[in-house]
């Protein structure tokens, strides 16, 4: 190691002398974490030189959160960093109050909330003033990585304050000279301010190289619903968007807990579903949607009426039900087979009787295979989809992909329809001759086909063109109808057969129903479908004869 030390010295006096040692040393340091590397720079001059030069490619120090917010009980604007944790779901106010030492102050602007606008504007002309002492700290941020950056807009009462804090944020980012990976925006409560704050988002996102956007939007629902694209029209669109409706515990008055809770909760959930709808319609490249819903109330509050609570839950179920249905439909129609989610995960953090709800979900979409359900505290419910229709759909997509360019080029609708009918449909309806076509299956076939048709015509979901219109434009054969026709045709073939052989492929039974469900209440159906097929004959007299003989 002494040798290395000498070599480092040599390296910096005569550049590019020996890079083998440098390579090795760099590789060693890359195994360390941020804090250890900073320690290493104290070892000797050559180490310090080395680390200073290569700091840009070395591992970063991990800091949990950077928060711009109002200091509790004062009118100071504070920028804080949290080294370890940033409380996400507990009352932040009290957290700041009780454990301020967990966080470190970076910048503090005194009496920010009391200062009249004019005075601040004076300051603004000479750009934002950050005390010199803090510059060192802020520039040290460039060797750090944050899990979250939080802009807390909740306390701002005036537009210029929002403006100012966004500028401050920009300044911070400029000084630390690094794009930020995660951002989380906490918005305030008054509506016009919110609208203003969202108009500033593009400005904020200039500083952000986000692959993750967390957003708490209790009040911003309307603006997002009216324009869901605002989430995507930022310079570096995030791949992960998390929207959350957070109820504030402060709102629950103990005199009327139920009314308030109901409004907060269900209002929130319905809004989420609304937004979710919009997101689906906007058809952006979002591969994973998740709904997280945490109803919160003080658990030691014994006043909660159990019967009432159950009523709430059932309402809640309905919402979730529609939500799940929408998720399923959305994936069926918008995503291609490769992107189909292997699981739909519903996290219900609160204990309760969810069996009924789950059962309903299974009843509705029988092709969901129920796997790994923890009945108590129904946490992390997973649904694994298993159905042969998926295979058929992916096969259809494959053949469609091969044909896609041609289909787009061909202008004559008849030729196009012929091409589609003769290549994609057979793949989609392969084996449909011997399989039961349930209504849900038919729906699936149709949605798949419609997605293809939309691709051919270049119509997006957001354009809101009716399916009927699309169908008339493309003149493709309806997949569900085609499946039914195939079945009839096949039956005809069998019936016309003169030799006494059965069909080469025996109908394998009904749609695949998972064994879990069979145990419950599908026993009759099971027997019916698995009964062996008896070959009786091809013409009526023959059938009579055969059955008598048998």
């Amino acid at each position: 190691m002494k040798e290395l030390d000498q070599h480092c010295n040599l390296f910096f006096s005569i550049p590019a002398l020996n890079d083998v040692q440098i390579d090795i040393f760099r590789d060693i340091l890359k195994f360390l974490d941020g804090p250890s590397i900073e320690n290493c720079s104290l070892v000797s001059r050559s180490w310090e030189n080395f680390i200073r030069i290569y700091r840009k490619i070395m591992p970063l120090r991990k800091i949990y959160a950077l928060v711009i917010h109002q200091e509790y009980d004062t009118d100071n604007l504070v920028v804080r960093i949290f080294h370890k944790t940033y409380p996400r779901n507990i009352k932040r106010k009290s957290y700041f109050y009780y454990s301020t030492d967990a966080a470190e102050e970076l910048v503090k602007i005194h009496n920010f909330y009391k200062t009249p606008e004019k005075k601040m504007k004076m300051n603004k002309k000479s750009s934002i003033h950050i005390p010199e002492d803090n510059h060192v700290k802020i520039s040290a941020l460039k060797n750090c990585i944050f899990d979250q950056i939080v802009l807390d807009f909740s306390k701002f009462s005036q537009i210029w304050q929002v403006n100012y804090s966004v500028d401050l944020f920009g300044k911070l980012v400029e000084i630390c000279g690094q794009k930020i990976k995660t951002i989380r925006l906490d918005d305030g409560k008054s509506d016009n301010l919110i609208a203003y704050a969202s108009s500033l988002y593009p400005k904020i996102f200039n500083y952000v190289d986000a692959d993750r956007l967390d957003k708490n939007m209790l009040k911003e629902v309307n603006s997002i619903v009216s324009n869901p694209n605002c989430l995507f029209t930022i310079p570096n669109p995030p791949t992960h968007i998390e929207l959350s409706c957070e109820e504030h515990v402060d709102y629950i008055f103990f005199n009327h807990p139920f009314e308030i809770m109901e409004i907060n909760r269900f209002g929130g959930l319905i809004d989420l579903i609304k937004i979710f709808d919009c997101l689906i319609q906007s058809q952006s490249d979002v591969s994973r949607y998740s709904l997280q819903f945490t109803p919160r109330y003080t658990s030691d509050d014994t006043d909660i009426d159990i019967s009432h609570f159950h009523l709430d839950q059932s309402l809640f179920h309905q919402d979730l039900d529609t939500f799940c249905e929408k998720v399923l439909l959305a994936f069926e129609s918008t995503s291609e087979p490769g992107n189909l989610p292997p699981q739909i995960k519903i996290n219900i953090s609160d204990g309760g009787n969810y069996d009924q709800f789950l059962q309903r979900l299974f009843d509705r979409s029988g092709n969901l295979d129920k796997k790994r359900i923890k009945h108590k505290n129904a946490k992390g419910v997973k649904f694994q989809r298993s159905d042969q229709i998926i295979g058929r759909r992916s096969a259809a997509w494959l053949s469609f992909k091969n044909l896609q360019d041609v289909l787009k080029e061909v202008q004559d609708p008849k030729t196009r329809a012929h091409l589609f009918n003769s290549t994609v449909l057979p793949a989609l309806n392969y084996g449909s001759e011997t399989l039961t076509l349930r209504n849900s299956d038919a729906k699936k076939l149709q949605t798949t086909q419609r997605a293809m048709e939309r691709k051919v015509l270049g119509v997006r979901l957001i354009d809101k063109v009716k399916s009927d219109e699309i169908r008339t434009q493309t003149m493709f054969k309806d997949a569900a109808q085609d499946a039914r026709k195939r079945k009839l045709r096949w039956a005809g073939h069998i019936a016309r057969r003169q030799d006494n052989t059965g069909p080469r492929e025996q109908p394998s039974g009904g749609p695949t129903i998972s064994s879990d469900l069979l145990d419950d209440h599908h026993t009759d159906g099971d027997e019916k479908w698995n009964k062996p097929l008896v070959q009786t004959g091809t013409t009526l007299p023959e059938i009579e004869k055969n059955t008598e003989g048998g």
Partner: protein
Amino acid sequence: MATESANGVSSPELNERDVVITTNDNRNFTVKIGVARVSKTINNMIQDLGESLDLSSGIPLPNVDGPIFEKVLEWCEEHKNAPEIKVEQDPHTRERKWFTMTEWEEEYFRKFLSHLWDLAMAANYLEIPSLYYYTCQKLAERIKGRTPEQIREMFGIEDDLTEEEKAEIRRTNVWCTY
């Protein structure tokens, strides 16, 4: 032609043949080609030489000395059929993910703890990724969590930083704890 010779070289019988490798202190090692191949440098040499390879004359290694090469060979014996390792790093913090070592490897490094740096040099020259990165990780393991004084003591480095310089480094790395 070139591909043919390469194919000829990679045949399993050849892996069983011996090759003589000469280190810079003129020590000769007779090694099976299959073992020597763990090193990409030697492998390239063998492939480039192709048909004209004269196994008896030996391959010279000017940058490696005997005692270290002995240790490297031990590693090669153990890893002659091992798959290539993947170096991954945390996308956010850029920290390398640590490899999990087998018991044999732990024992190996425990045996040669004082030669880690030489091993890394040799592995770098001979291009043995598994040995190289594992050694780096071992060295990092020794550095991690120690104070600068301990590191200095361990590697015998002189403290040539003045107190002012140290204070400056601590000031720029605000959250540096030592």
